[in-house]
């Protein structure tokens, strides 16, 4: 006796029988929503929003990679849906051929796709939160923990997941409707066997693709720089189009891989002819998928390369600084003096040596400024009181650095780091201004001095002739005066002492110093006098608080943030933790997404070509031959996008590091070396997924 009495029961039984096909679709949907929900939850969490500067490059990069990940998720969700319907179409076609009308099939089909898409999408969305929570807490447990890293969610992030969820369900329903609408039933039945071949181009397309890739990278990166340097205009938004050759080039490289492969066939034109043909006839989607995989792997590498390129130079800087403790403070602040610090040191069993102290003044320095003409255009104009500068006398410089210096009257020497890559340099100053008396000292640039601890990105630091210094600093009040102090520990340093001293140091400042290094008092005075409001008084970005002296924002931006070697070395990872963890998370998400796309693409190649593998078996192909064919198919999907994605990003990073100052310094070489090691590790991971995909396909095919 038949257990099936009506259409609904039949559909339910068929769905149970097709569970394997549905499983891949469910898995892809679940993964996509989990990734989107986790990424958006973390990206929009107050924890991350607080740390990533608004309008800053790191935040833009985070958003950019999110868009790329979103694209990847859209691609593999749509693709998994396509696979699901390719299989489903045979069943639908048979039922249509046996007289089931659209109206009869529609309720069951829509119910099935809505349930499958909806349940997997909702489950994925929900799973995103424990997923991100687990990863974040694993980071905290295993890598680094700080007060900044307490993870909180802003549940408005669910809006993004909800949109994606609606897109998944909507697209599933649309696809179902498209299948039902088709009038050629034979096409529906044979859908599974239809090829998606790609238009063939000559063997030139691969090399030309690489050239386009290079041209796009150079043009896209170089054109905005040229805009600033030669034309003094802000690069217009359309200029991003100059990156377009990158995508065209990528497409051509992938197309070449799919259609021709990269090995010469002159000697043996029949070599790999079966695998090449199989690849070619699935070409369209394979090329599209390979493009997305490349972008995702490139995005992942972009995120993970951020860690060594930032970390190495900081670690090197800390290790090579000549003092264990180096700090400066405003003269009107009640900062602990030498006796007090030494007494604190004794509590920790420490004694100090090479104690150095000197005074400095903060003056207004003239310089070239970008004056906006309109929203697009600006010109460079000399402004007498452009910004603040910390100014030392020759004597003070000798005391604090132990180095000899001779500055001619009427000139100044500008401090920079050993590599001359520091940002706070100024070669164009014609005068210094005493901000209390408004007296000016005419001067001109006489060259650079190299001392890393005095060369900061935030404020220009200069050395004047002793006489000039005495003359210009006359009449300055204590809020425009400051002191540098430095000392070394006699023996082994103590983190506990450094931490205690740091908090004592911070707590000795009053609220007038509760500002960031970017808050420029000279610029504020000038702009206020011109009747303008200073940006630093309006932007939330510059607000920091003594209460969170251990936070990333405070330690990164406080104007008097000291350089305590042991504190910096130990806390570097902790201070940068949120940023690093976010980029590490982005890397994980991009790699998972890329690997899911690879895996589903390999699955679909196997599914679509299973008749060819059957035929090959019947024609006497050995297991070794079949094994080689499967590996060859998967190899193309995994290998080329991975190599192109990883090395394109490696070269881009090298280009950025070189373009920063027109050369590569030792720390940059070291960072690139670490990036190469990371590429090796990623390669190993991708190879493991590739092996798993090959083994799964082999199990499915024979």
């Amino acid at each position, binding site marked *: 006796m038949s257990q099936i009495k009506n259409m609904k029961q039949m559909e339910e039984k068929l769905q149970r029988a097709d569970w394997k096909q549905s499983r891949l679709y469910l898995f892809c949907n679940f993964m996509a929503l989990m990734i989107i929900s986790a990424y958006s939850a973390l990206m929009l969490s107050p924890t991350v929003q607080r740390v990533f500067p608004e309008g800053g490059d790191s935040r833009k990069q985070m958003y950019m990679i999110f868009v790329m990940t979103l694209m990847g998720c859209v691609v593999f969700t749509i693709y998994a849906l396509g696979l699901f319907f390719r299989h489903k179409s045979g069943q639908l076609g048979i039922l249509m051929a046996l007289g089931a009308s659209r109206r009869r099939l529609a309720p069951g089909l829509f119910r099935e796709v809505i349930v499958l898409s909806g349940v997997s999408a909702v489950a994925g969305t929900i799973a995103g939160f424990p997923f991100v929570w687990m990863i974040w807490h694993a980071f905290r447990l295993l890598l680094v923990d700080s007060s900044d890293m307490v993870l909180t969610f802003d549940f408005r992030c669910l809006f993004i997941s909800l949109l994606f969820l609606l897109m998944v369900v909507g697209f599933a329903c649309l696809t179902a409707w498209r299948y039902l609408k088709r009038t050629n039933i*034979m096409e529906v*039945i044979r859908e599974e066997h239809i090829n998606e071949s790609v238009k063939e181009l000559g063997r030139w397309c691969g090399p030309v693709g690489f050239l386009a890739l290079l041209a796009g990278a150079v043009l896209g990166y170089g054109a905005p720089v040229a805009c600033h340097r030669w034309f003094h205009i802000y690069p217009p938004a359309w200029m991003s189009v100059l990156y377009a050759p990158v995508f065209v080039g990528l497409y051509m490289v992938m197309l070449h891989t799919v259609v021709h492969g990269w090995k010469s066939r002159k000697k043996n034109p029949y070599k790999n002819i079966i695998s090449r043909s199989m690849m070619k006839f699935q070409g369209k989607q394979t090329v599209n998928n390979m493009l997305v995989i490349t972008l995702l792997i490139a995005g992942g590498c972009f995120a993970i390369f951020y860690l060594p390129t930032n970390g190495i130079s900081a670690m090197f800087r800390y290790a090579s600084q000549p003092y264990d403790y180096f700090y400066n403070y405003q003269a009107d602040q009640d900062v602990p003096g030498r006796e007090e610090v030494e007494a604190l040191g004794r509590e920790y069993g420490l004694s100090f040596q090479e104690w150095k102290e000197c005074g400095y003044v903060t003056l207004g320095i003239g310089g070239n400024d970008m004056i906006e003409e309109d929203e697009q255009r600006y010109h460079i104009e000399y402004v007498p009181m452009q910004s603040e500068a910390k100014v030392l006398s020759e004597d003070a410089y000798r005391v604090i650095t132990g180095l000899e210096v001779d500055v001619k009257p009427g000139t100044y020497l500008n401090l920079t780091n050993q590599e001359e890559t520091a940002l706070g340099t100024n070669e164009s100053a014609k005068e210094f201004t005493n901000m209390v008396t408004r007296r000016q000292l005419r001067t001109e640039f006489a060259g650079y001095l190299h001392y890393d601890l005095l060369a900061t990105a935030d404020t220009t630091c200069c050395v004047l002739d002793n006489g000039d210094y005495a003359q210009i600093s006359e009449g300055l009040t204590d809020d425009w005066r400051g002191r540098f102090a430095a000392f070394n520990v006699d023996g082994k340093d103590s983190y506990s002492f450094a931490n205690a001293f740091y908090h004592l140091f911070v707590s000795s400042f009053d609220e007038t110093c509760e500002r960031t290094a970017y808050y420029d008092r000279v610029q504020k005075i000038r702009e206020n006098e011109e009747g303008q409001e200073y940006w630093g008084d309006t932007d939330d970005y510059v607000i920091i608080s003594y209460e969170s002296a251990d936070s990333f924002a405070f330690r990164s931006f406080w104007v008097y943030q000291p350089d305590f070697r042991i504190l910096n070395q130990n806390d570097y990872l902790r201070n940068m933790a949120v940023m690093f963890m976010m980029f590490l998370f982005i890397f994980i998400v991009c790699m998972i997404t890329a690997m899911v796309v690879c895996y589903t693409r390999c699955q679909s190649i196997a599914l679509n070509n299973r008749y060819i593998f059957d035929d090959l078996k019947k024609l006497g192909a050995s297991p070794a031959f079949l094994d080689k064919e499967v590996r060859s198919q998967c190899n193309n999907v995994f290998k080329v996008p991975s190599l192109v994605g990883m090395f394109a990003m490696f070269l881009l990073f090298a280009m950025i590091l070189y373009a920063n100052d027109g050369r590569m310094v030792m720390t940059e070489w070291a960072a690139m070396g670490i990036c190469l090691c990371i590429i090796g590790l990623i390669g190993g991971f991708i190879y493991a997924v590739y092996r798993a995909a090959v083994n799964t396909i082999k199990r499915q095919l024979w």
Partner: protein
Amino acid sequence: MLYVKELYKSYESGKNKYEVLKGIDFHVAQGEFVAVMGPSGSGKTTLLNCISCYVPFDKGNIRLGGMELAGLNEDALASVRNTKIGFVFQDFMLLDGLTIRENILVPRIVQGKVEREAEKQAEQLASMFGIGHILDKYPAEISGGEKQRAAVARSLINNPLIILADEPTGNLDSKSSWAVIETFNNAKTQMNATIFMVTHDSFAASFCDRVILLKDGAIYRQLEKWENRSVFQDQLLDAIKEMSSV
């Protein structure tokens, strides 16, 4: 029973248009067993797909049991496919997730509720075609010949006006082919079924009352069986030979 008049069908591939059927005219009477033969690309399967309303045709008329098929809406066409036509595919097209009994009953399930009477009819058809013992098995568990006989039983479950069969023996060995042709013969003799079959196999075609030879989308010749099967098969082979040499 089935009237086909001035039937035209073409396919487009890129900028090229291929005329597959070029004004086909013929009719099939009630209870007649008719085969269509012809070389590959002659339009046999396209003709069958047009009659079964699986693919739309460009112009012409198809009348089945007095009903004009051109111009019917989707619902009406589905109803024709369900109640007036039984279709047998070359590769069986059974649903892998259902038992043979359930597969035979699919056209009834599509109609609505399956009554006890329908189940009885499925069992009768199965025993008539020698597959009564495999009713509770799944397609993956039975032979190709058994699958095709199950497909024939499925095509008959709604007592259609005509059975359309597309190379029903194409994927079968000779023993199974024989069993399937026997099945069609039984349907014709015991149920007065009308059968229209596309085939390459002159042995299978020799069991028919009439054979239509198709060449380049047009009817080349029609042959009727007046004498015994073996003589008819020889006549068919001669006609095919002649057609190939023209």
